[in-house]
């Protein structure tokens, strides 16, 4: 069995970038107005992944725990920032909440998977720790941003319903039950979808990567199952923790709403709106 890789040349990458150009062309033709964003996103992908490649080569070569931890800290920082970057509503402390969520999700799920399930030795082996935690953070990020957006929208648009419950003596947890439930449910959509169609519609990313790299399919499947469950946990942690954190900032312990702390951010793209 050929365990080797077909090497990709810069020319191959250039050809692949044609897909983005086609998508941008469609956007211009249909006046969707997303070509600028698409271009920037594509550029970011190239620059970020390029830099990552360079950094990973160094980190893998050095193999020191402090370097791995520093890299994880940087990943947590960026994932927290990105998780709230596109939120249409903000409150003071939103960034801190996102970072805390990411850190907890990263430590709990990442720790369990790398140290217990996979049993990485030495514990900081960057070849395992960094990609696994990268996946966890990426999924937490999805959970966080969807859950947060839904929670803030619900509290804002349906404050009268929350206050109706409060007016009859509901405790904070009782008044927040429905908004929290809606937020977590929304935050879990990507991973429940991914788990439902795994293997039927899509070959999940990690498995695809391993098979492309020449791993035996059953081994790739075993890893993918671990990864799916891990991602479900990180997605759920992200969705739940951020909803918990945000609701505690926007609703006082006695239940009164502190929605004056909430502000609407004007979308920097088209179709922006002001409150």
């Amino acid at each position, binding site marked *: 069995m050929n365990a080797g890789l077909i090497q990709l040349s810069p020319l191959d990458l250039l050809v692949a970038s044609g897909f983005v150009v086609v998508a941008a062309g469609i956007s211009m033709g249909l006046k969707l107005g997303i070509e600028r964003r698409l271009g920037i996103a594509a550029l970011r992908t190239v620059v970020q992944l390029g830099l990552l490649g360079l950094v990973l080569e160094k980190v893998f070569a050095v193999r020191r725990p402090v370097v791995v931890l520093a890299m994880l800290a940087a990943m947590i920082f960026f994932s927290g920032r990105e998780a709230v970057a596109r939120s249409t509503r903000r409150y003071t402390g939103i960034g801190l909440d996102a970072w805390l969520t990411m850190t907890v999700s990263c430590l709990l799920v990442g720790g369990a998977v790398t140290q217990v399930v996979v049993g990485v030795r030495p514990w900081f082996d960057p070849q395992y720790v960094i990609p696994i935690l990268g996946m966890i953070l990426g999924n937490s990020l999805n959970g966080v941003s969807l859950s947060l957006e839904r929670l803030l929208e619900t509290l804002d648009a349906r404050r*009268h319903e929350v206050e109706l419950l409060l007016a*009859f003596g509901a405790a904070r947890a009782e008044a927040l039950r429905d908004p929290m439930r809606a937020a977590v449910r929304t935050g879990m959509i990507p991973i429940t979808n991914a788990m439902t169609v795994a293997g039927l519609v899509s070959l999940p990313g990690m498995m695809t990567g391993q098979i492309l790299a020449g791993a035996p399919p059953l081994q790739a499947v075993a890893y993918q199952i671990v990864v799916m469950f891990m991602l479900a946990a990180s997605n759920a942690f992200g969705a739940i923790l951020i909803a918990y954190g945000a609701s505690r900032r926007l609703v006082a312990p006695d*239940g009164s709403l502190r929605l004056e702390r909430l502000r609407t951010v004007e979308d920097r793209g088209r179709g922006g709106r002001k409150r």
Partner: protein
Amino acid sequence: MVAPAARRSVTLPLMTLLMRCGPLTGQNGEGRVLFENVTLELEEGRLTVLEGASGSGKTTLLRQVAGLEPAPGARRRLGERELGLADLPPWRSMVTLLAQDAPVLPGTLRWNLEFPFGLRNAGDRRFDEHRARSLMDSVGLAGIPWDREAASLSGGERHRLALVRALLWDPPVLLADEPFSGLDPDIAGICSELLHRQARRAGRAVLAVLHDPALGAGADRKLRLDGGRLEAS
């Protein structure tokens, strides 16, 4: 020592004082002071009507008393009991606001009548279906099936539903913010009568803001929020 708030409060010969809340200071969205150091006192078995020009802060005052808006420094007393900030949820269950816009929860009409009785602070209060039916009948909502989505009710129907729920809940103090808006004069008269009856029961009091002065004609006491002060009118 008498606090300034107490000096400014209305001093009428009191029957039994049921509720006292203050000093309250309210601002509007732009930060303009609507009222300052106001203390509200309600007597047992009486219907008090709160008047005042639009924008004078009546709704803000009611919301502060109900504990839905922050009222820094305010002390809350119900009967012999002094309730602190940590007791706001139980306070709200006893000093309940009937909100101006008569919001409903997603779900059926039945759920909208029953939900308060499932809350932790409901204590030993139980939903009385028989009384609910009879109240719904008297406000002219007998024909609406209870499994109907509450969101599909008209504005006037929602106001009546909210009134029925508040009467079933039967809190010691009911704060009603324009409870009859959008109602036909006939129905408004019936609802007004129900509110009067609720107010005059033992251990109960009602404070109402009414858009139509005629509906408050039989009130036991009238207060006016004017120029930032609460005065008897």
